[in-house]
C-alpha cells in the first residue's frame, strides 16, 4: 500500500504498532494462601512455642509438597501402610473438615464405597503420607461439611479413579452453591439450628419447625467483644516469614 502525501511524494514507511501482551498471571497478582494451621490459637502461650513449631512445619513442607486446599475439595491421599499389598494405601474423598493447629493439623476425607460411608482423619504432617493430590478444586458454602453424613449418599460418592480436573493457577477457586438434600430426620445434629449457620442444605422442613429452630439463635454473639480475634496482622507477619523460608 502507498500513501501520497500532500506534496505528491510517497510517505515514509511506518511499521505497524507493536501488539500489547497482557499477561493475566502477573496482572492478577500472586494469590496469597496461608494454611489455617499456621495461625496460632488465641491464648497465653509463649509465641516461641509456635515459632519452633512453624520451623518444623516449614521443614516438612520443603521435603513434601502440601497443596493449597479448602473444605469441599476432592483429594486423593496415598499413605505408606505395612499391612496393605504394595505397602501403599490410596484413598479418594471430599474434605469435610480441617482442624487442629500446628503440627497436629488434621483433615477429614469422606467417600461412599459400595454403599458404605467411610471417613478417614488424616494428619497433614504425618510422615506416613506420601502424596496428596487435589482432584477437584471447589469451595462450598460452609466451612464444615459434617452434614454430609445425614445427606443422601449420592452427595458423598466420588469415583476412586477419577481424573484430576485441570485448574489454572491465577483463576479464583470456584464456589459451588450446591444445596444438598437430606435424609429424613433424625439427624446426628440438628443442622437447622442457627448455631451451625449452614447455608448448603435445602431444608424441606415445614415453616413451623424452621421458626421453632430460630428460638435457639444467639444474636448477641456477633457483638461480643471478648470473643473477637483479629488475625489479620498475625497473618501478615506469618505469611512473610513462611514465604521467605519456603523460597530459600
Amino acid at each position, binding site marked *: 500500500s502507498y500513501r501520497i502525501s500532500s506534496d505528491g511524494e510517497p510517505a515514509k514507511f511506518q511499521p505497524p504498532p507493536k501488539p500489547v501482551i497482557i499477561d493475566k498471571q502477573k496482572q492478577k497478582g500472586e494469590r496469597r494462601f496461608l494454611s489455617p494451621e499456621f495461625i496460632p490459637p488465641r491464648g497465653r502461650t509463649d509465641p516461641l512455642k509456635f515459632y519452633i513449631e512453624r520451623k518444623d512445619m516449614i521443614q516438612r513442607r520443603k521435603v513434601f509438597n502440601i497443596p493449597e486446599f479448602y473444605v469441599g475439595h476432592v483429594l486423593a491421599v496415598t*499413605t505408606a*501402610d505395612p*499391612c496393605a499389598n504394595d505397602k501403599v*494405601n490410596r484413598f479418594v474423598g471430599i474434605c469435610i473438615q480441617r482442624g487442629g493447629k500446628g503440627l497436629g493439623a*488434621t483433615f477429614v476425607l469422606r467417600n461412599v464405597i*459400595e454403599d*458404605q*460411608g467411610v*471417613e478417614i482423619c488424616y494428619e497433614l504432617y504425618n510422615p506416613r503420607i506420601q502424596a496428596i493430590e487435589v482432584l477437584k478444586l471447589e469451595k462450598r458454602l460452609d466451612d464444615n461439611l459434617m452434614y454430609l*453424613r445425614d445427606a443422601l449418599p449420592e452427595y458423598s460418592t466420588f469415583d476412586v479413579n477419577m481424573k484430576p480436573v485441570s485448574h489454572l493457577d491465577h483463576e479464583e477457586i470456584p464456589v459451588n452453591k450446591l444445596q444438598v438434600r437430606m435424609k429424613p430426620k433424625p439427624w446426628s445434629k440438628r443442622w437447622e439450628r442457627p448455631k451451625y449457620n449452614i447455608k448448603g442444605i435445602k431444608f424441606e422442613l415445614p415453616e413451623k419447625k424452621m421458626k421453632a429452630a430460630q428460638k435457639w439463635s444467639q444474636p448477641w454473639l456477633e457483638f461480643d467483644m471478648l470473643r473477637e480475634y483479629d488475625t489479620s496482622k498475625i497473618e501478615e507477619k506469618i505469611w512473610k516469614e513462611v514465604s521467605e523460608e519456603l523460597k530459600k
Partner: protein
Amino acid sequence: SITGACQAIQKLTRVRVVDNSALGNTPYHRPPKCIHVYNKTGVGKVGDKILLAIKGEKKKALIVGHKMPGPPMTPRFDSNNVVLIEDNGNPIGTRIKTPIPYILRQREGEFSKVLAIARNFV
C-alpha cells in the same frame, strides 16, 4: 423411640451383618444385637469377637468397622459392621463386599480366612 446409635460396640448394640450368609441377610422382625463382647472391657473395637443374637440364635461375630472415631489414619464407618464367624474362626459367608480396614491384616493368623473372602480394603 430408638436409642441414638452407639459409637463403639457393646452389649445390646444393634449391628449390621456385612457378609452374604443366609443368617445375616434373611429379614427378621428384630435386628441382630450384641449380647457379649470377648474383651476385658465390655467395649468392642475393630478386630474384637462378639456374641450376636440373630433370628433367635446365638452366633459369634467379628467386628470389622464401627461408628466411633479411632486413631488418626484409620477409617471410620457410617455403620457398625460385623462378619459372622464360627467358634474356630471360619466365616459363615463366602463374600464381603463392604470395605474392610487394613489394620485387620496385622493379625493375619487369626483372621486369614475372613481376609481371604474380603473384596475391598480401605
